[in-house]
């Protein structure tokens, strides 16, 4: 799945924290109060929002003026998706990290359990 850049993440944080939909202007105001040092142009916010829309993170309500934006998933769902990717196994990723205990077949798990309980004498 797609990941978020730093600015995208900040925008998503505001959307996740909002009750409902926000316009780009409202969003920018909340962003400014969130990190007062950075002043963002509305056009920048709009660019980020359309990128987030393309990535499937944000829905845009075009029927109202100005357009309203809201997050597609909740923050918890997004975290769960990321966690799923981190913990899931793909051959490519298996090459990138070294697990303490790698893939375990059910039979082997059974053997390990037997070893643990000491019911099997070897």
């Amino acid at each position: 799945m797609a990941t978020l850049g730093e600015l995208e993440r900040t925008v998503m944080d505001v959307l996740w924290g909002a009750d409902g939909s926000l316009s780009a202007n409202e969003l920018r105001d909340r962003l400014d109060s969130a990190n007062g040092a950075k002043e963002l142009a509305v056009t920048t916010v709009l660019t980020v929002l359309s990128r987030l829309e393309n990535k499937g993170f944000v829905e845009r309500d075009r029927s109202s003026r100005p357009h309203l934006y809201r997050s597609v998933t909740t923050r918890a769902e997004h975290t769960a998706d990321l966690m799923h990717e981190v913990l899931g196994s793909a051959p490519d990723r298996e090459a990138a990290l070294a697990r303490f205990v790698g893939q375990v077949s059910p039979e082997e798990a059974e053997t390990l359990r037997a070893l643990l309980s000491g019911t099997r004498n070897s």
Partner: protein
Amino acid sequence: MFTASVVLAALALTLAWPVPLILARAAWPARAPGTALVLWQSIALAGGLSMIGSLVLYGLIPFGGNLIEGGFEFVRHLFAGTLPPDANFSQMFALCLAALLTGHLLLSLLLTVVRSEKQRARHLSLVNLLSAPLEGNPGTRVLDHPSPVAYCLPGTTSSVTVLSEGLLTLLDESQLRAVIAHENAHLAQQHHLVLLAFKSWHSALPWFPIANRAETAVAVLVEMLADDQARRATDDRTLATAIALVGSGAATDPGAPELTWANRGEIEPGLVGPRVVRLLNPQHPLSSSARAVVLLAATALLVIPTVLLVLI
């Protein structure tokens, strides 16, 4: 030069088939994993060297009496666009094959490195988002997830050991110390580089069953090496219990089925069991004289094809 090429071909065949089979079945590697790892690397390198070297020597026969002379002559003909009068089709075919094989192996290595580096970077950024540092253990982070997981992410600039909340609940303090020592050993000894090399060899030759066997054998040896470091931090039984707990717990946890089931077809039987058995019934390490013999053999494996290539 023809004789040398035949000898190299015979060596390549021996190293490609019977030798890895025998080594994969042998019992002594568990008693000297580090030495066995050196031998595996030497077999793989010498095998590739003799295979390509044999083809090159055979192909260069019409160009000159030895590799250097033939090589120079070959380059001269290449630029002139000519062939020596006694060159035949099979020799040119051998040269093409050597070039293709070399390119294929190098490209596969490059691809494997780039791909795993990309995966590693992405994984690291996700882990940084999802985890918190573990107090008192620099370079260790904890994922908030109930299934017991432990792994390390080796990086070029910084490496991370990742544990899960599930692991922290499952293991007691000394078992946890064993896990961290095991992962730190992987990082300190740069095991991922060896694994990467064998992985790339396997992906370059997917139809070659020995490559698969070698990759598995090397993976087990690397784990045993890390276990040997970890048993210094605790005792054998604590480490064995930790492995068995994580192994059996990870396989039964309904919360993260993909963790163990996704690659069901690829599960190699008995990757974890031998590690536990080895810790529970410790055997004497291989004697230093036997280890010296193995290291000598590993050196000879590399020297022989080199000598055959350059000096004959």
